[in-house]
């Protein structure tokens, strides 16, 4: 299931060659079927995939006390994969192209692809740093954990580059199947396996729906390539138009499901709580990014002719998602077990709503690139600060405690740096200064909505921002309140274990990034004006 995506791609290409309108002609020029692969372009997902296999095998030969090396190795592989992005910048490479006809390509490394890959690989790198301590502390099976994490990251990195429906579906599955196992990795914990099952069932339903939609689209247009589908859809035979419309709707629903947009969000809180904290962080950032890049690709690249249908639909979905997520987060009591992760889970649903806004606006705009870029910019901001918040949760959670919000009371006194970092991340998520980058990302989202004439959506979002402030600020205020049991200030501070090096590195990395982008928001907002495709 978690096989390398590469062979799938080539098989896919061969299949395409045969489905073309004149297959015999293609076969006659047999030499053309052998294509050269641009290995540099496919390096980012490929490096990660190879590393995944390497880690799985290497685990068998490592003594128990050296298992920590696997984590280092995985993080290094992710960093290396990130470095392979550098030569691709500004190149607009494409590979796995048809050798005749439309010359459509299945793998394109344009600005959009590279940005999402940067987000995915960077996010996975931070997750890896975060996991090193947790894997050891919670005695998770190391080989399996790192293999699954890297496989999922490989799928998520492949996804934004995919330019045909089959590769998209395969990449999405490569990204999500290992994630089920990651969620259920805490052996012998009822909550963990229940979460994995919930996640699995809902995700499989989404995949089934999406596959049905994809097959309908294929039947109506005769092509899998996004660009060809986009050209063929407006001119479909009138007898097939219902089929095409159903296909479009089902495909989009499938992807919406993956982004955990309401009403398909119910699995999120339980899954995040049941999973190990780094895995929850991973799902909230990389899982979402994968879903969103898929949604962007099918909506903007394959179905632009249906923009007048999916534009309003996504707008409603966005309004619903942010309201449901924020109200859910608002309901969290501070004394509930796993309150912190649960709150972040609901907040991630709410944030997904904001991410959908520019996408909905893209349905109204003549030039959807700018709107898509706004989603990317917001996603980058969200990735940094959300991973940071999860890092603090993972860092301060004493082993055995159940992570209530009340446990964060008085953190400013016991761990001032972690408390300041968490406060900063939360204010970024809320979009209030000093979290400047969060504020400007929201301004960009508002701008896309106002630009598209979606005034009502902007107002709904404005209300949601206020609602969201309540719980973000409650949590922030809690950090600075004296803890209930340390009423006497003369009492010496309880001894606390030092933060492990990887956790410190995670906090420093996310904190520095959030600070840097707050000082120069252009770093992330440049994508709102960049040419993406």
């Amino acid at each position: 299931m978690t096989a390398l995506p590469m062979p799938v791609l080539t098989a896919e290409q061969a299949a395409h060659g045969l489905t073309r309108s004149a297959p015999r002609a293609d076969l006659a020029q047999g030499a053309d079927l052998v294509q050269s692969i641009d290995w540099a372009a496919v390096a980012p997902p490929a490096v990660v995939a190879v590393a995944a296999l390497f880690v799985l095998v290497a685990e068998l030969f490592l003594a128990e006390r050296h298992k920590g090396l696997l984590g280092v190795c995985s993080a290094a592989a992710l960093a290396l994969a990130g470095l392979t992005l550098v030569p691709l910048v500004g190149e607009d490479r494409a590979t796995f192209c048809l050798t005749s006809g439309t010359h459509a390509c299945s793998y394109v490394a344009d600005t959009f692809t590279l940005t999402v890959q940067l987000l995915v690989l960077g996010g996975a790198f931070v997750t890896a740093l975060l996991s090193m301590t947790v894997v050891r502390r919670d005695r998770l099976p190391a080989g399996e954990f790192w293999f699954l994490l890297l496989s999922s990251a490989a799928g998520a990195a492949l996804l934004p580059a995919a330019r045909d429906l089959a590769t998209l579906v395969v990449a999405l599955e490569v990204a999500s199947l290992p994630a089920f196992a990651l969620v259920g990795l805490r052996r012998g914990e009822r909550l963990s396996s229940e979460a994995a099952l919930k996640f699995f069932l809902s995700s499989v339903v989404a995949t089934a729906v999406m596959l049905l939609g994809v097959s309908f689209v294929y039947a109506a247009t005769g092509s899998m390539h996004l660009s060809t589908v986009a050209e063929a859809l407006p001119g479909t035979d009138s007898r097939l138009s219902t089929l095409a419309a159903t296909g479009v709707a089902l495909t989009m629903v499938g992807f919406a499901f993956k982004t955990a947009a309401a009403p398909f969000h119910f699995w999120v809180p339980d899954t995040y709580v049941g999973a190990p904290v780094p895995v929850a962080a991973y799902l909230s950032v990389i899982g979402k990014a994968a879903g969103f890049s898929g949604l962007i690709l099918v909506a903007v690249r394959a179905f632009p002719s249906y923009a007048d249908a999916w534009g309003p639909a996504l707008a409603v979905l966005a309004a619903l998602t942010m309201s449901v997520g924020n109200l859910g987060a608002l309901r969290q009591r501070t004394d509930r077990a796993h309150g912190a992760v649960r709150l972040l889970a609901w907040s991630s649903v709410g944030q997904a709503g904001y991410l959908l806004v520019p996408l909905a606006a893209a349905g109204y705009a003549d030039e959807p690139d700018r709107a898509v870029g706004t989603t990317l910019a917001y996603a980058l901001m969200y990735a940094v600060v959300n991973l940071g918040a999860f890092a603090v949760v993972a860092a301060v959670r004493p082993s055995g405690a159940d992570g209530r919000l009340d446990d964060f009371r008085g953190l400013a006194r016991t761990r001032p740096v972690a408390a300041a970092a968490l406060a900063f991340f939360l204010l970024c998520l809320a979009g209030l200064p000093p979290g400047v980058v969060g504020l400007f990302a929201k301004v960009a989202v508002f701008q896309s909505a106002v630009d598209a004439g979606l005034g009502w959506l902007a107002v709904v979002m404005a209300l949601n921002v206020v609602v969201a402030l309540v719980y973000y600020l409650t949590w922030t205020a809690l950090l600075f309140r004296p803890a209930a049991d340390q009423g006497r200030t003369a009492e010496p501070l309880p001894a606390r274990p030092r933060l492990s090096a990887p956790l410190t590195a995670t906090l420093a990395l996310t904190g520095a990034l959030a600070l840097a982008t707050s000082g120069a928001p252009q770093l992330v907002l440049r994508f709102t004006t960049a040419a993406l495709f």
Partner: protein
Amino acid sequence: MIPLDDTVLQALLIAVVALPLLGAAAALLPAPPGLRGRSPEQAVLRHGVTVTGAVLALAVLLALGFDHDRPGTMQAETNVDWIPALGVRLHLGTDGVSLPLLVLTALLSFLCALYSYAKPPPGPGPKGLVALLLLLECGTLATFAVLDLVLFFLAFETVLVPMYFLIARWGGAGRGPAAWKFVLYTLLGSVVLLLGLLVLGLNAGTFDMVRLAQAHGSGLGHTTQVIAALAIGIGLAVKAPMWPLHSWLPDAHTAAPTVGSVLLAGVLLKMGTYGFVRILLPGVPDGAHTFAPYLAAFAVAGILYGSLACLALARRGAKGDLKRLIAYSSVGHMGFVLLGIATLTRTGVNGALYANLAHGLITGLLFFLVGAVKDRTGTGDLDALAGTTGGALYGRAPRLGGLLAFGAVASLGLPGLAGFWGELLALLGAYHPAPGLSRPAFLVFLALGALGTLLTAAYLLQVVRRVCMGDPAEVRPAALATVPDVRAHEFAAWTPLVVLTLVAGLWPGALLGLMEPAVQNLLPGVAR
């Protein structure tokens, strides 16, 4: 007055805005050797005084270097790209409208830091207090100095978090709910404000306030202007505050520590009215014209409501809190400011800006005084303070009583003190509103506003009678038995305010000469 190079002025303005931010960050770090002082607490409080003092010195230098021959033009301008993707530029500058507000903010922040140095408010350590005060100062100074809509919004939002924590952590009874009410109301206002600013900026094609003012609404359709004016107006009206969006204010003031109240009344409320003058009037003149009568009506309702609420609080047996009373009086005073703005005349807007500054000085002073009374007696309850015959501050603490009486008569607008000119000009503006506005309606507003000044006089004199007069020999509960008179640090913090109130009352020409040309630029083509 002092000829300064333009680059120097530029650097001064940037330093005025940036220094408090750096100071806030530095306050959180441990003190370097040599600056440790007697204790970490004392060191950080002294750091606050040093930084705000430096900012004040720079602001005064900026005011002196400002070319007073052409106060209508933007000076000390800096204009560099910050976020090209959103079209946001770091555009700073000051003219006759914003310069006095900058100096006022720097002054009040310095006085608050000085006051906290001598008497830190009870609560968690002073480290956070100083950092928050400096962050607050940075946000307010930036609000008055920036010339870009998005930047204005950023600065406008910056004050929320520090003010929330100031109230919630260092406040008095009922601080938790009051802080929430403050932050939710103002945030709700500011997201609406953001939508309005975006509608304005995107349709006009620029976020630059100077260019928007020059365009004066040309190129914007009537509907766009109305939508933008409504959204921006609501956002600013929450902050100002305009009746009926004021209800966060009394709670916040009552619960806030003294320095919080002083800054809230003295500086934060001005951000709302400043936005009206700087953005709404020149940016969307059509929209402003459409809503001016409603704004005036709400403003007058605020004047009457504020003074009636104060009268009710000042009654015997009403158990009125002094801080709450001053807060309600702020609603009334800001009503005059809004009325002046709503006339859309130069007279009215000048009056509004004057009343704005006067309110900052006088109400700042009053909150200091009331805070001092509350600190000494442990209660702000007017009935408890007054006892059976009256508080008798004249007899028991003559200087404190005298200052309180001075603040009260300044607040009621006695000629010769700062409060007089602003209200007079605002009412004068209403006598001849801008062409196109219904004169009869504004005459009614004028009459009601004048009635408001009478009511204001009534309750303030009532307060003076009940707190300052009375029998010093009356037997009182232990907590109220002795009231120490004004202390040295209090003199230091209050004297500048008293002096400036007198100066602004006796020499209005100095300020009006500064503001008038700038207002003329913001309201082109208006005769009066």
